[in-house]
């Protein structure tokens, strides 16, 4: 069903279209990643860290705020990519009929889908880059390994962008995105080792966290920023690559069925 020979570098044109619209409101687009980590650091650093004190994680001790800082970046990657290919892509597909217009040009549906996923990853990486700068100012990031956060954000962004676009391909109305957000995004946000180490979870719950792509992204971000992680890093990378590839293929199949009549 997926025609590999219909994929060419033309997808960059669609990616560029999204970049042009992004640039129009770049100030608004940059405010969130700039202020969001400040809000979290303020809330958890001032309010919560007093209760928790130090966190024992992967054989070392970290201040609570230093512990959650990499997870904040990973979470922002998830939110940026997932919301881009769900709500934003759905609006382009259903309300603005942007993809219908593109399909009257030499673009293939494969190229449009790939461009949407790559774009969501780009947007996520841009947000991650900004947050990295803010968190570095607090001294929460080791360098040079901290720079790995940006390519990791691209990988993680592709994974979350792909599954988001898969939901866009199957969901009947835009209101129903509440469902994958409640069942998929929120549990991941809470249980992916973001606010407490997964090693603190009871044994039966650990495999669940292991299945979450956000868990692997959080761990890899911690490795980059703090130099420690609980998972086997290359396995986490492989997991994210496979997740991104699998859901890109599913997104393509579902979007094709939805768009081509």
């Amino acid at each position: 069903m997926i025609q590999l020979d219909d994929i060419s570098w033309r997808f960059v044109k669609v990616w560029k279209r999204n970049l042009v619209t992004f640039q129009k409101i770049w100030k608004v687009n940059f405010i969130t990643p700039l202020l969001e980590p400040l809000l979290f650091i303020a809330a958890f650093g001032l309010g919560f860290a007093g209760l928790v004190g130090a966190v024992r994680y992967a054989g070392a001790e970290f201040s609570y705020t230093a512990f959650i800082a990499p997870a904040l970046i990973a979470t922002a990657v998830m939110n940026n990519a997932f919301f881009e290919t769900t709500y934003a892509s759905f609006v382009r597909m259903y309300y603005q009929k942007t993809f219908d217009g593109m399909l009257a040009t030499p673009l293939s549906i494969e190229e449009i889908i790939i461009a949407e996923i790559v774009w969501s990853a780009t947007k996520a990486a841009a947000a991650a880059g900004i947050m990295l700068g803010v968190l570095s100012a607090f001294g929460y990031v080791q360098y040079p390994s901290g720079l790995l956060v940006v390519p990791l954000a691209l990988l993680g962004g592709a994974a979350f962008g792909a599954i988001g676009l898969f939901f866009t391909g199957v969901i009947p109305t835009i209101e129903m995105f509440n469902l994958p957000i409640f069942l998929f995004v929120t549990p991941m946000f809470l249980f992916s080792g973001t606010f407490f180490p997964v090693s603190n979870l009871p044994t039966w719950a650990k495999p669940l966290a292991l299945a979450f792509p956000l868990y692997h992204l959080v761990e890899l971000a911690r490795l980059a920023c703090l130099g420690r992680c609980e998972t086997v890093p290359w396995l986490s990378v492989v997991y994210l690559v496979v997740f991104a590839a699998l859901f890109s293929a599913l997104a393509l199949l579902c979007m094709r069925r939805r768009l081509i009549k």
Partner: protein
Amino acid sequence: MQPIIEVQHLFKKYQDVTAVDGVSFTVGRGEFFGLLGPNGAGKTTTIRMLYAFSPPTRGVIRIFGMDIARDWRRIKARIGVCQQDNTLDPDLTVEQNLIVFAGYFSIPSKEAKARAWELLEFFALSGRRGAKVMDLSGGMIRRLILARSLINRPELLILDEPTTGLDPQSRHQVWDRLEKLKASGLSVVLTTHYMEEASRLCDRLVIVDHGKLLVEGSPEELILKHAGRSVIEIGGPDQALRDYLKAHAVPHDDLGRRIILYTPDGNELSHAVRDNFCHQQCTFRTGTLEDVFLRLTGRELRE
């Protein structure tokens, strides 16, 4: 000369509906070709297959001599499509809409800018270059969609109801531009619900219904053959008229409170009708494509 479009035994089936049921036609280079039919007749489905949006269930489409199933990308690079829906990008300005779209055809940005300038001029949109699409009137939106469909300098233009919902001024402006494009040698396929539009623009047309092709010809030929040069509409017909028409086997449509007669011009018959049966209301007019359309596809509502 090789036709620009060849369609052979085209079928499109959805689960339990046959939207296009064995249609064949050709369009010559430089021809303005019309595809008419009531709602749900299969026009848009056919057109979507022509620009490789939907794959046919069965049948062959050749454009510029190439098979659309295989060479879709090369074909699409050389055609312009004006879809029925507004597919303009509301996030972009008028000019950006053209330039970004040019990117999809891999037109270099300098060239794209020059063409956008030229097309905005041609469609009287130069003053709105930096405007948001959402601030444009219906007529301007249509003109911008048309301008966008010409950005790749197509050899074939496909128009799916380009003037639906426009006021008469805007419609005439669009017609004027389309006539200019036609004069420049562009080949065009048009679907429309406006018979006046089809008569004015089309060199040749087909009428389809229930996915099948009913007739094919120039607007004049079709009017002569299926309606007649002159038409008399008689309001409040009486039994005497009905008997007379029956006795003389005059082609007519009896709508109850109105009878429409299709007569050759200057016929004795029309004089007889004029003298004897025009009691209330009588309109003498020339036959139109609308008469042909309604006679062939019926007067019942379709939706």
